[in-house]
């Protein structure tokens, strides 16, 4: 098997060093399965895809749902009125979703290589992202259950808040730029 290299692999050491102080934790979650789902939310196919996922596709703009645990854990993020992003551990079976859609109108596309995932957690995670993001990231308005496509330091990202911080999905070709920006912005929070 050919050697795989994740887009931010070169930053693992510097992420770890920046995480030592305890105020922040930066890490790449490489090789997650990401599936772009497009289907009419009011169609029976949308319901069947939800059944295959174990959770209905969220129809409220800017929301995300999590279901399952361990190898079966999925996060389904609203990207548009007929578009969702499924994020799951590596090896998640995209065929199950394809089966859910069948030959009806819609699409299920494996986009795992399009973006990599950066995990930004810790007590100063929100302060760090606020340096380059215009959204209000306070948990009262942007806590678990929300999601947003926006820009962070001018790079397009999908932001998914978690209990302890944020999952940040960034295009592979922007990963190095964003990693450099995060490390630079983190300097004041790193002991």
């Amino acid at each position, binding site marked *: 098997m050919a050697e795989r290299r994740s887009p931010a692999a070169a930053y693992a050491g510097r992420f770890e060093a920046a995480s030592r102080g305890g105020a922040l934790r930066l890490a790449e979650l490489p090789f997650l399965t990401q599936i772009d789902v497009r289907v009419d939310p009011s169609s029976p196919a949308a319901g069947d895809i939800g059944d295959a996922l174990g959770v209905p596709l969220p129809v409220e*703009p800017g929301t995300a749902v999590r279901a399952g645990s361990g190898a079966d854990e999925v996060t389904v993020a609203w*990207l*548009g*009125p007929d578009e969702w992003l499924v994020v799951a551990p590596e090896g998640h079976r995209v065929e199950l979703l394809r089966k859910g859609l069948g030959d009806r109108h819609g699409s299920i596309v494996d986009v795992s290589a399009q973006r990599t995932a950066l995990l930004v957690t810790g007590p100063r995670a929100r302060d760090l992202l606020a340096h380059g993001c*215009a959204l209000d990231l306070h948990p009262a308005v942007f806590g678990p259950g929300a999601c947003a*496509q926006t820009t962070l330091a001018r790079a397009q990202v999908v932001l998914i808040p978690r209990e302890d911080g944020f999952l940040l999905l960034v295009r592979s070709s922007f990963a190095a730029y964003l990693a450099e920006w995060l490390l630079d912005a983190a300097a004041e929070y790193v002991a």
Partner: protein
Amino acid sequence: MLLIPCPWCGPREEAEFHYGGQAHVAYPEDPAALSDEEWARYLFFRDNPKGVFAERWSHSAGCRRWFNALRDTATNQIHGVYRVGEPRPVAS
């Protein structure tokens, strides 16, 4: 910087959007039947009001949907936004 309320995502900064020009310019029913002048009018001629203007915007760095907005070209105030297919609201 404008704060533009995407009808799907809510208020976002202008840098997330692309401008799409005048809204409600219908594609001609039978383009081949048009004279050169009529075709040129469809392609190139747009209103240029000082005041409320219905125009298209795309939330390109967000939900990637096109929508319409009523913007006052003199004050930049956005009087309303509406989704594709929805009727143009009355400007307040």
